C-alpha cells in the first residue's frame, strides 16, 4: 500500500506495464521531454527511452491513427489526448477505424490501444476544455470506455486497460490528478466490473469519475444508508451489479457530470426502470449538469457539476418522499 496522487498512480501503472511488456509504448503532445502537461508521464522517458516514449506534433488524427496501426502490428500504444475535446479532430480513428478493425478483419487483426484523455470541469478551463463528452465514444461496439475515480482505480483500471486486447477510451477527470489516495499495486480491477464502494439499503447511488467522490460526501451528509457504486466502466457497463443493488435498495440515483439532456445516466435509469418495473419504491432519477456549456467564472462553474449539497438534497428528498426532486436550476428558477 502506498499513498500517492492520482497522477502518480497513472505514472506507476504505465511504468509497471511498460516494465512487464516491451510492446507498451506511449505518445502524445509533450508527454516525453516535458513529462506530460499534467505530469502523468514523469520519469518515463528517462526510464524507457525515446523509442517508447514520444512527443508528437499537434496532430491528434495522425497520432491516434498511428496508435491504431501500431496496435494492429502487435504493439500496445497508450496515447494521451490532453483534453477530451481534442478528440473532436480525431474521433474518426477511434470510433470508425479502431473500434471496427477486429470486425472488418474477420477477427484477424485486433487493436489493443488505450486512449487516455483528461476531461470534466472544475478547474476554470472554460467551455472548450471542460466537457465530459462520454457520448462521443459511447454506443460504439468494439470500443470500451472506462473512467477513473481515485488513485486506486487510476492504477488498477489503467493496467487493466493496457492489458485489454481491444481499444479502450480511458477518461481521467482532470480535477482528480492532484488527489491523494492509497494504492495497492497488487489489486486487480476488471474492465466491465463496477465497484461497490459502500453498502446500504435505502438507495443505490451510481456515479463515475469525480462524481463518485461528490456522491460519497453527499451520502455522508444525508445520513441515509446507501449503496454507492462507482460504475468505472461505461462500456460495457456492469448491469448485474447495478441491478442487484437496486433490487435490494429499490431506489436509484445516478449522479453524473453530463448534461441533463442526453447524458449517459439515461442508459442506467432507462435500463433499471425497465428491468425493475413495478419493483421500485421511487422513480429512478439522474442528478446531472444543466443543459449549458461549461461556464468559466468560478461563481458559475462551482455550480455546474452536481455538488454534494445538491446531491444530498435530492437523495434526501427522493428517499423521504419517493418522488423525483427537481434540479436546483428549476427550484431556484434561474434557468429561464
Amino acid at each position, binding site marked *: 500500500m502506498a499513498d500517492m496522487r492520482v497522477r502518480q498512480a497513472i505514472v506507476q501503472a504505465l511504468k509497471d506495464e511498460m516494465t512487464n511488456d516491451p510492446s507498451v509504448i506511449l505518445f502524445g503532445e509533450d508527454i516525453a521531454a516535458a513529462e506530460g502537461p499534467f505530469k502523468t508521464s514523469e520519469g518515463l522517458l528517462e526510464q524507457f527511452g525515446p523509442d517508447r516514449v514520444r512527443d508528437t506534433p499537434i496532430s491528434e*488524427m495522425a497520432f491516434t491513427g498511428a496508435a*491504431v496501426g501500431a496496435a494492429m502490428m502487435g504493439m500496445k500504444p497508450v496515447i494521451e489526448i490532453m483534453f477530451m475535446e481534442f478528440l473532436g479532430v480525431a474521433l474518426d480513428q477511434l470510433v470508425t477505424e479502431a473500434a471496427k478493425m477486429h470486425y472488418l478483419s*474477420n477477427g484477424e487483426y485486433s487493436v489493443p490501444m488505450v486512449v487516455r484523455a483528461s476531461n470534466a470541469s472544475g478547474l476554470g478551463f472554460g467551455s472548450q476544455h471542460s466537457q465530459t463528452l462520454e457520448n462521443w465514444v459511447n454506443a460504439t461496439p*468494439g470500443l470500451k470506455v472506462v473512467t477513473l475515480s481515485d488513485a486506486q482505480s487510476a492504477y488498477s483500471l489503467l493496467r487493466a486497460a493496457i492489458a485489454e*486486447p481491444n481499444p479502450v477510451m480511458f477518461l481521467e477527470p482532470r480535477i482528480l490528478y492532484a488527489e491523494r489516495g492509497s494504492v495497492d499495486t497488487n489489486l486487480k480491477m476488471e474492465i466491465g466490473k463496477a465497484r461497490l464502494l459502500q453498502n446500504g439499503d435505502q438507495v443505490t447511488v451510481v456515479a463515475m469519475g469525480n462524481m463518485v467522490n461528490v456522491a460519497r460526501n453527499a451520502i455522508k451528509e444525508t445520513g441515509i444508508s446507501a449503496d454507492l457504486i462507482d460504475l468505472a466502466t461505461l462500456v460495457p457497463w456492469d448491469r448485474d451489479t447495478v441491478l442487484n443493488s437496486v433490487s435490494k435498495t429499490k431506489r436509484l440515483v445516478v449522479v453524473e457530470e453530463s448534461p441533463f439532456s442526453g447524458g449517459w445516466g439515461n442508459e442506467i435509469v432507462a435500463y433499471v426502470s425497465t428491468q425493475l418495473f413495478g419493483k421500485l419504491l421511487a422513480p429512478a432519477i439522474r442528478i446531472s449538469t444543466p443543459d449549458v456549456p461549461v461556464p468559466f467564472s468560478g461563481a458559475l462553474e462551482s455550480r455546474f457539476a452536481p455538488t454534494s449539497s445538491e446531491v444530498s438534497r435530492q437523495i434526501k428528498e427522493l428517499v423521504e418522499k419517493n418522488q423525483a426532486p427537481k434540479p436546483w436550476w428549476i427550484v431556484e428558477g434561474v434557468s429561464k
Partner: protein
Amino acid sequence: MNTAIQRREEVRKSELAWYERMLEIREFETQVNALFASGAIRGTTHLCNGQEAVDLAIASTLNNDDVVAATYRSHGIGLAMGLTSESVLAEIMGKATGCAGGVGGSMHLCNKSLGLLPTSAIIGGGMPIAAGAALAFQIRKEKRVALAMFGDGSTNIGSFHESMNLAAIWKLPVIYICDNNVYGEYSRINITTPIEDLHMRAESYAMPHEKVDGMDIYKVKESLANAIDRARSGGGPTFIEAKTYRFSGHSRADQALYRPEGELEKWQSRDPILVTENHLIKAGKLDSSKVAEMKAKAVKDMETTIEKVQKDPDPQINAMFKNIWAVK
C-alpha cells in the same frame, strides 16, 4: 502455404504473372460491374480499371511481411496482393466465404497473411494507420515497411497532412503512394486543388517525393523499389505520385459524363495492360497468340468464379455478433 500467399509469390516472381493478374483484375471489375447492374450485388463499389499497374507494382515489389493500408477502391490491390477472385467476389456479394466473412463488403477487404489491412472507406483513414504500423517496425527494428495508398482528392484531407508530417519527423519506414487518377468522385482534381503535381506537397515535410508514370508498372516498381530501400535502411518515408486515370465512373452509379471529351480515350491509349503487354512482347516473353489465350483464360476463370460464388452460403445470423471484441 495458403492460396493467397501462393498467388502473391507468383506476382513477386514472374513478369508474366503481372500481366496475367492485371487481366484477371480487369475481367473481375468488368463482371462486378455487370453483376451490380443486374442487381445481383447490393451496396456500392469502386472499380480500379486503369490503375492496375500501381496495384501490381505494389504487390510485386513489397515483401510478404510488409503491410498495405488501402481504400474502398480495393478490388485491384486485393487481387494483386493475392486474394483469390472467389474470396473477393464472395465478400462483395456478402457471402460467408468472403475474405471478411461477408460483414465487410466491397469497401472492406482484408487478409492478415498478405499484410492487407482492412481497407478503409474513410478518406484519410489509412494514412496514419500505415504510419503507426511503420512505427511498430521501427521500434522493433524489423526491416518491414508499411505503405498507404490513396487518391488525388485525398491529399486535401487533414489526415494526409498530419500523417505525412508525423512520418517525416519520426523517419518512419512508410511509403505514401497517391494514385492520381485525375478525379475525386465527380470532381476533376483541378476543381478542388490549386496545384497539379501533388507530390510537391511532400516538400512541406522535407520528405523525398517523386512523380511516376502510373500506367507503366516498370516505372512504378522502380520508384517503389527506391522508396522501399530508403525505408528499410532507415532513411524514412517517401511520397510517390503515380499519374493514372480512372477508366470507370467513381462508383457503380456513375457514368462519368463530366469528363472532357477525348480525355478517357487519350488515357486508354496508355492502358496499363497494353503498356505491360508491349513491354513483354518486346522482351520476347509474350506473343499475340499467348495474349489471346491468357485473355480467354481470364474470362473463363471469372465465369467459373461467379458460378461458384453464387452458390456460396450467406453468413449465418450469428456472424453479425462475432469478432466485435477481441479476446486475449
